[in-house]
C-alpha cells in the first residue's frame, strides 16, 4: 500500500493534510508559502499537494494552489 501522509486510506485528510488545508485557507498558495506557514520541508509540501489534489481537496491554477469546494468544507 502506498503511504499517503496528507490523506488517509479512508480518503480523509490527516493531521498534516489539515495543516496544509488551513494554510491554504489562510492565503498561502504556493509551495514556498505553504512550507513557511506549516513549517514542513518543501519535499513534504510538494508530495502533500499532489495527494490533496488527487483526493479532490485542492486544485492547481497555474502555479498556485487553492481549496476546492470539497476542501473548503473541511476547514473552518
Amino acid at each position, binding site marked *: 500500500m502506498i*503511504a*499517503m501522509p496528507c490523506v488517509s486510506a479512508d480518503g480523509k485528510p490527516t493531521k498534516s493534510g489539515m495543516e496544509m488545508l488551513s494554510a491554504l485557507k489562510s492565503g498561502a498558495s504556493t509551495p514556498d508559502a505553504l512550507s513557511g506557514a506549516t513549517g514542513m520541508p518543501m*519535499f513534504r509540501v510538494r508530495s502533500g499537494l499532489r495527494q490533496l489534489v488527487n483526493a479532490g481537496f485542492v486544485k492547481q491554477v497555474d502555479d498556485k494552489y487553492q481549496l476546492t469546494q470539497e476542501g473548503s468544507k473541511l476547514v473552518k
Partner: protein
Amino acid sequence: MILMEEKTDEIRLPLIGEKAPDFEAETTQGTLRLSDFEGSWLVLFSHPADFTPVCTTEFIAFSEIYDDLKKRNTELLGLSVDSASSHIAWIRNVEEKMGVKIPFPIIADLNKEVSIKFGMIHPAQSKTETIRCVFIMDPESKIRTILYYPLTTGRNMKEILRIIDALQTTDEHKVATPANWNPGDPVVVPPPKTAEQAEERTKEGYDCKDWYLCFKKL
C-alpha cells in the same frame, strides 16, 4: 559503468556531474519523488538493513547532524530494501531504546527499483542488501559526490558535512579545496589556462608556491 541485471536490460549508473534519474518511492513520510527535493541539496544514502548494529549507529549519527545539514540547505533521504513497516518499527525502536528521533524519510525499496538505478547493490558484498552508498546532489538534482562504503564500515558524518561545505564553497567562490581542507582554511585558486595568465598569476597577491599552485583566504 554498466550494471547488468536480470530484470532490466542494461542500467547505466548516474555519474558525477549528471542529473540524477527521477523516481517515485514509498517512504516513511509518504510517497516521494526525487524531484520533490529540488531547490535543496540532498544526501541520498542506503543502508544494508533495519535492526542491524552498524546501521543503527549510522542512523543516530545522521540524526545528530540533521540540524547541521538543514543549516546547509540540505535534506537527508535514507533507503534500504526493507518494507515501510519495518522502517517504522525500527525508527520507533531507536527512539524508544536510544532516545533518538529519526527526522528524515526512509525509502522502502522492496522491489529494488531505486537501488538498482543508483548501483546500490554490489552482489559480491550481498545479493539482497544495499551497501552503504552516499549520493550528494545539488539543488538541481545534479550528482556532485558519490561515496561507496562496504557493509562493515560505518560512515563518517564529519566527512559528509565537509564535502557539502567544500562543494558549496566551490560553487559560491569558484575555487577548489585542497587535501584535508576544512571551512576557514585557505582555498586553491583555479590554475591559469594560458602562459600569459601564468606569468600574471604570481603577481596577483595570492599565496603562490608556484604559478600553478596558489592559495587564498576567503
